[in-house]
């Protein structure tokens, strides 16, 4: 039995996951908590948010996120990948910044509109 705090939403339910019973989850307030409890003990994943450089824009950086979750163990690899990225303004929310990041099947997308200067 492992006790977890759910991170799916700000409520922060106190979950109990039973590894010996097919990762059955109790203490969850919604079905997403049950899914999280199972996944957190088998294949933990996170959405990554960061920023990348922008040239010729009203701002120097554009914020970005992965449009799906990455394996927790690959977050730092993904951060290194972002280091060299430079966008040209204008940038619009939803623009794909890096397609299929690290071959993990999720894209890095812009989360900020940066108009050209």
């Amino acid at each position, binding site marked *: 039995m492992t006790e*977890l*705090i*759910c*991170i*799916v*939403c*700000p409520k*922060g339910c*106190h979950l109990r996951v039973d590894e010996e019973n097919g990762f059955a989850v109790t203490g969850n307030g919604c079905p997403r908590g049950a899914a999280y409890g199972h996944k957190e003990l088998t294949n933990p994943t*996170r*959405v*990554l*948010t*960061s*920023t990348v*450089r922008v040239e010729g824009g*009203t*701002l*120097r*950086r554009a*914020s*970005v*996120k992965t449009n799906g979750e990455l394996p*927790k163990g690959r*977050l*730092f690899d993904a*951060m290194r990948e972002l280091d060299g990225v430079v966008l040209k303004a204008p940038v619009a*929310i939803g623009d794909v910044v890096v397609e299929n990041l690290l071959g993990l099947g999720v894209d890095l997308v812009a*989360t*900020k*509109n940066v108009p050209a200067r």
Partner: protein
Amino acid sequence: MNEAQYDVIVVGGGPAGLAAALEAAKEGAGKVLILERNDELGGILNQCIHNGFGLHYFKEELTGPEYAARFIEKLADAGVEVLLGAMVLDISADKTVHAMSREKGYMLLRAKSIVLTMGCRERTRGAIAIPGDRPAGVFTAGAAQLYMNVEGYMVGKRVVILGSGDIGLIMARRMTLEGAKVLACVELMPYSNGLNRNIVQCLNDYDIPLYLSHTIVDIRGDKRVEQVVVAKVDEKRNPIPGTEITFDCDTVLLSVGLIPENELSRQAGVAIDRRTNGPIVYENMETSIPGVFASGNVVHVHDLVDFVTAESQRAGRAAARYARDGEPGGPCVLVENGNAVNYTVPQKIRTDNVDKLVEIFFRVNFVYTNMVIQISSGGEVLASFKRDHMAPGEMEKVAFPKALFPKIRDGKITVSVVKEEDAQ
């Protein structure tokens, strides 16, 4: 001199101001203006690049800039005017807003109603009087967040964070991902004021230790921070000699609380609640000055922007109605703080102005389990709400139905929190 007349003027273009202005326009206010001192709308959301915003309001998980954009995009269609780079200097009793901007110069803007949405500011090192040297490298967490996420500067390499508020926790993760080593998150209280999910995904995920009941007792360094000394504190929050831990670091981030920014409100004569440091408000977010409303972090510091949005829509709606119909009258009930309750918003309820129910927001003074929230009047409990878990870091909300208003005695209700076994 620039002069103009508006139905509703909104002071501040962060999440509260955006929601209030859009809702005022939707409620029929013809001329609505947002005055924003920054060069872009969105307020603090612009630097909150992490996700988790909007789960209540949009039913999806957005980053801060995306959440802001959802509202900004609607302004043009709604006919809301925006003035950026505009600083409000004074609001006079006849609801004239004195403002200036580089572009327009000095402006006298008259409004039928005003919504105050100036947000809050961070407490600084000066406010909590940390002893030690005064080197560079001591930042408030929000300032560091602005430098990193908006300006693109790394603020340090080896970091100690004082305070476990959400901004501090979010910055612990952010700095770690950008290559810094976060050595410790130090919290004076025996519990964290941040959301549980942030302890998990910002500290635990990166093996950053959280020192509860500890504080910084010394900052050392000549030009730049070189060392920080942390000590355990007793129940009275005094450092215990002999428990000192020394960290070699170059940066200290402070996440030690937020204070509603009410200089303009005070200047205008708005009555302020000493408990929230924000305006005393009625059920519709109207302040002590008729036609002047307030919402968001300028009233009380929120945990979730979704609740700022909902509260500000209430303020915007009420401001539009005031501009059209004037002041709602009728009897007024005072909301008093009972056991374990630190403050409530609203503090006053005009019963005739409530539709079906009134939502009362509050915070408790400590961490509790298995409690019952009671709303009582004249010694009688009118409504009870069960809670498994309560903490000062989590704002509570109860809905008090209008059907129970006839039971209110002496124009007062009390919100209190009691142990389940002590509840009647």
